[in-house]
């Protein structure tokens, strides 16, 4: 079972990175300020880089096991919606700048804790990818934190928009810390991460930044029901449309090299 677990676990990490990169890249050429257009594109690029490393590794694991020819591109471009294992948060629409920022802040703060732990993974490849990515993620956390503060403590409008983004996104944060089957198995097998243990640090960071942003703390949303399902392939209706664009060329021209 370990091979399957490793494959699924790695795909999950890769899908998170790819789908968020795809979402963020929708801003490229349409950002509110040129400098920020560049910044959000940078984050996209970092995430695509992570996704590529992870897909390559997943393909390696798969090919060893099945003797078939998976590649980073076959994994990204030739699985349908039920096979994608990303969490619901990353597939949510960009909305306005506040929503994009808050999504990034939530995700990067989670990814920071995750990769910190994953550095100690018994799987050397995952540990190496985590270590390499951590520097990028540290920057993503800082950049998005600064924007959360700026919008929260900026104008009345920016504050309202951030609160609205919170209403949209908070319900997708619980899934980050709710392990899917393969995450539990990965933990047992020794290469995964104890997700529930990451939650406290995540909330602390969120509260710290929210305080500066003059937003109510996480406890004020304790009653919100948390949506789950994405990690097990039960997504929102958004993902199908993301994939229709993402995968069009590979689907339309099967077997072609680009």
């Amino acid at each position: 079972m370990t091979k399957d677990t490793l494959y699924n676990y790695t795909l999950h990490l890769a899908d998170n990175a790819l789908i968020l990169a795809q979402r963020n890249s929708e801003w490229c050429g349409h950002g509110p300020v040129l400098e920020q257009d560049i910044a959000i594109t940078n984050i996209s690029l970092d995430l695509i880089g992570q996704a590529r490393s992870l897909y390559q590794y997943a393909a390696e694991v798969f090919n060893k096991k099945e003797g078939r020819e998976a590649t980073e591109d076959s994994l990204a471009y030739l699985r349908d919606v039920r096979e994608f294992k990303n969490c619901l948060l990353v597939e949510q629409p960009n909305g306005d700048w506040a929503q994009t920022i808050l999504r990034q802040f939530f995700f990067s703060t989670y990814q920071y804790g995750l990769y910190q732990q994953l550095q100690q993974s018994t799987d050397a490849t995952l540990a190496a990818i985590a270590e390499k990515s951590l520097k990028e993620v540290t920057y993503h956390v800082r950049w998005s934190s600064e924007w959360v503060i700026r919008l929260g403590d900026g104008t009345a409008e920016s504050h309202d928009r951030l609160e609205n983004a919170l209403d949209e996104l908070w319900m997708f944060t619980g899934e980050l810390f709710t392990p899917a089957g393969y995450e539990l198995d990965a933990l047992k097998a020794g290469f995964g991460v104890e997700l529930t243990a990451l939650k406290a640090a995540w909330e602390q960071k969120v509260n710290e930044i929210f305080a500066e942003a003059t937003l109510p703390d996480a406890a004020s949303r304790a009653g919100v029901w948390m949506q789950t399902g994405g990690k097990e392939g039960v997504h929102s209706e958004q993902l199908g449309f993301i994939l229709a664009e993402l995968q069009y060329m590979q689907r339309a021209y099967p077997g072609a090299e680009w």
Partner: protein
Amino acid sequence: MSVQELEKIFLDKIEQEIKIEPKDWMPDAYRKTLVRQISQHAHSEIVGMLPEGNWISRAPSLKRKAILLAKVQDEAGHGLYLYSATETLGTTREQTIVDLHSGKAKYSSIFNYPTLTWADIGAIGWLVDGAAILNQVMLCRTSYGPYARAMVRICKEESFHQRQGFDILMALSKGTPEQRDMCQDAINRWWWPSLMMFGPHDSESTNSEQSTKWKIKRMSNDELRQKFVDMIAEQVKVLNMTLPDPNLKWNEQTSHYDFGEINWAEFWNVVKGNGPCNKQRLDARRKAWDEGAWVREAASVYAAKRKAREEKKEEKQIA
């Protein structure tokens, strides 16, 4: 000093290939020409993000997606350098952008054509960036310092982009029949608009003469265009593709390629605003700007708040 004396100093510097710097005296017309040209160049980078950006979500492999994204990002960076160069001449970025959105300022007409297939991304890299580079290489030696220095940075990245574009087409040219068709079709659609990028014939070009005297420009439109044709006519052979010009032919006597006449009616029509995507491009830029207004405002209000708080803190510490 009298204006005549100042002008003499200015022209001497030009003569001696000494760069003009922001604090130097310069003729109003020189300044105006530069502002027009640099801001037009900046806008071309920014508007140029749109046709290529159109394929980011659909790039056919992860590697190509990353390369394309990085390329479009570079263009944003080029825009930044150039807006900064304009600012050294006393025109703010905001004013420059307002002029773009009102239609007063222009940008390169090539970006008013649509990107219909993935091969267009290759063709833009190869042909459009290829044409741009020739112009930009020349501008690395332009007489205004900040502009010349921005160009040096841009040129490095741009030639990288051209190679990437060629590489996309190379992959297609070695691919399936559909991919080869896609490649040839993109070349067919982008070839003539690329030639138009160098602007009207020297005989028709109104701004050129003065710009050459001031060493803003150092080669004529037709000279640059010829250089481009000579370069591409060779490279296209490597792709096993053709250029859509029955009159294209090596001329032993001139040691250049002869080529057919450009459809200048189309050129002027697109400049006037009637290209396939003029409205779409400006609408997209305006939309991004307008929808970003609250973000820019929030950032500046927050910065002011923060500054005030820090000043207060300092005051306390002093007191």
